[in-house]
């Protein structure tokens, strides 16, 4: 019951005009980047961090959460109408969704996607509200050894387990860790890797790294393959609606998709992509068992399931993010970086020290879901028209926004130089198929990993055994070993599925 009263207080804080406006701005922006292929929620939040630094932190995070959720709603629209998933987590939606649109069932596909997204968001956010405090209670007893184990879990999960290629994933992680070590070492005061440059004594700002990798790197990558992209024509679609029969076919896939998506948010499995494909596969198999052969010709179940799954994963990824400070996707990693910019550290302390912020944020997730339902259900075809914006203006605008955001954060030309250098690095990684998420996780969690390790060793006077002393640490390492073994066993099959 205490949770409920805290949540009600949160609604009180989130329902102020300013916060409602920020939430609306967030969900609109999120829908926009969700609709546009090539722009992700991670990039959008990275670009917003320097600009929102003057805002009240609660307002800023309400806006970020709106972007995070909006991206999942928007991604479905273009997947269905144009076969162009705006986000990788909408790829599974495009399979049946675009076929439905070609069969003149676009309104039904859009409706089942938006309603499924809404339903699963609400269910998953409710779970977040009740499980985050439990996660916090668990985490209160965590000391440096446990935090070190958590960072190791996040490092290896994103770089070795999820990324398709272990060598590339680990290289990205190492580069991220290296970037995070530049500057004065907090514990000893030693100056590391600055090459005598005074501007580097404070280290390389997380904002510079995230914006450089995601925004500048992406624009350089787009420039490197700037063949004229074919003009996109939106499929005329009409107002989304569902009749009784479609609704009857949709609600079970919604629930199954939600159930599949929920656990994937809590484990560091790299975001919402895997559960959407699992949900698609499950719906297809169930349809086959029923003797229903509509899959491959536009089955509504194939849209309803994956869309519910990706929203559920997005929502529950907030549990480890807020409760432990453990990001499970690139976007969550940027949000964690944003907390650090405000001098806050997600985890048990956040719930006690910044209780108002946390509950306002959680309440705003419900409000944002309702806003997204209202914005997307009647207006989905309008959003799809965004694809007519000339891409050169879009990317030029991103470069300008990235540059100005990074410059104004510290009024330092040197930061802009660093931004472009990191952008060039991001381009190289992107060009040769290196995943960016491990770099981000390395930069953002690297300092925590190092300090936890050194504190643990100082506590134990140099005895390595302290790292494996607590039950939680042992548990985390066991989870890690299971994940590594499972991924090694499953990899050949996934590889074949990917090429086939």
């Amino acid at each position: 019951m205490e949770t409920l009263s805290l949540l009600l207080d949160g609604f009180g804080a989130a329902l102020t005009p300013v916060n409602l406006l920020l939430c609306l701005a967030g969900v609109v922006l999120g829908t926009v980047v969700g609709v546009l292929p090539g722009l992700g929620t991670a990039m959008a939040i990275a670009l917003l961090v320097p600009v929102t630094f003057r805002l009240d932190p609660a307002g800023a995070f309400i806006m970020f959460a709106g972007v995070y959720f909006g991206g999942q709603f928007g991604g479905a629209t273009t997947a269905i109408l144009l076969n162009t998933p705006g986000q990788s987590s909408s790829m599974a939606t495009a399979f049946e969704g675009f076929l439905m649109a070609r069969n003149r069932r676009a309104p039904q596909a859009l409706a089942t996607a938006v309603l499924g997204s809404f339903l699963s968001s609400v269910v998953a956010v409710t779970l977040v509200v009740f499980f985050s405090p439990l996660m916090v209670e668990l985490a209160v007893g965590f000391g440096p050894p446990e935090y070190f184990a958590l960072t190791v879990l996040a490092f290896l999960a994103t770089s070795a387990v999820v990324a398709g290629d272990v060598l590339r994933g680990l290289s990205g992680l190492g580069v991220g860790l290296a970037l995070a070590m530049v500057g004065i070492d907090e514990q000893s005061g030693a100056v590391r890797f600055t090459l005598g440059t005074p501007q580097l004594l404070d280290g390389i700002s997380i904002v510079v790294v995230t914006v450089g990798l995601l925004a500048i790197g992406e624009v350089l990558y787009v420039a490197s393959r700037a063949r004229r992209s074919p003009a996109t024509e939106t499929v005329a679609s009409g107002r989304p609606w569902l009749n009784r029969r479609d609704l009857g076919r949709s609600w079970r896939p919604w629930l199954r998709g939600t159930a599949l998506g929920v656990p994937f948010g809590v484990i560091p499995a790299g975001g919402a992509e895997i559960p959407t494909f699992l949900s698609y596969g499950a719906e297809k198999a169930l349809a086959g068992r029923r003797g229903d052969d509509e899959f491959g010709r536009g089955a509504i179940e194939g849209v309803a399931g994956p869309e519910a799954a990706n929203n559920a994963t997005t929502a529950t990824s907030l549990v480890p993010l807020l409760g432990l400070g453990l990001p499970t996707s690139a976007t969550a990693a940027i949000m964690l970086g944003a907390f650090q910019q405000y001098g806050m550290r997600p985890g048990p302390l956040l719930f006690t020290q910044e209780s108002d912020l946390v509950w306002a944020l959680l309440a705003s997730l419900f409000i944002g879901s309702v806003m997204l339902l209202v914005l997307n259900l009647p207006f989905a075809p309008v959003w799809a028209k965004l694809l007519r914006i000339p891409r050169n203006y879009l990317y030029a605008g991103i470069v300008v926004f990235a540059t100005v955001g990074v410059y104004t954060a510290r009024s330092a030309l040197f930061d802009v130089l660093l931004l472009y250098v990191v952008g060039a690095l991001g381009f190289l990684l992107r060009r040769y198929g290196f995943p960016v998420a491990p770099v981000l996780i390395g930069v953002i969690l690297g300092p925590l990993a190092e300090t936890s390790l050194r504190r643990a060793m100082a506590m134990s006077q140099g005895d390595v055994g302290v790292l494996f002393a607590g039950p939680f640490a042992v548990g985390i390492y066991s989870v890690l070993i299971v994940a590594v073994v499972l991924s090694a066993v499953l990899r050949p099959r996934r590889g074949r599925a990917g090429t086939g």
Partner: protein
Amino acid sequence: MTTFVRGNASRQRGEEGESTSFWTGRGELLVGMLVGSIGGFLLVRTASMDVPSSVSFLGPRFFPAVVGALLVVLGISLAVRVALAGHRTGTADAATEEPAGATGSGSEWKPLLLTAATLVAHLALLRTAGWIVAGALLFWGVSCALGSEHRLRDLGISVIVSSAVQLAFSAGLGLSLPSGLLLEVL
């Protein structure tokens, strides 16, 4: 070793019939070298680091040494793998949070170099010419590099964009952007 790589890569290139630049199939070697040299840099600078005497147990050198060694090993492994496999650029499943199927064929150099040149010019002009000029150049340069069809119209749009940003940031958010030497003299 080198000849083997070249022969292998050019054969693969012939099969694919795509762009035939020197780096086709060997580009990842560059990344391997970069990763390895970052690791080498970490190791060298760690060895010559000034460490305060108060440090006990794991000092500021331990973590960089581990990461540096890891990067050297990874860089060598990447290079060896490229050398052994010949032509194998990005597999789609490696990248998270991006649409698959975007990797593969070679880069186009002209738009890329134009974009990079725009960034360099912006850096050079930001303090001297001020934001409105440098920002407009940034927008215009990137837009042209990405294949704009209306250069003159874009110039107008660029000036509007950079002025709007100046207005929003200085008047709206109270953050200062460089006004440039010209305006300061006036």
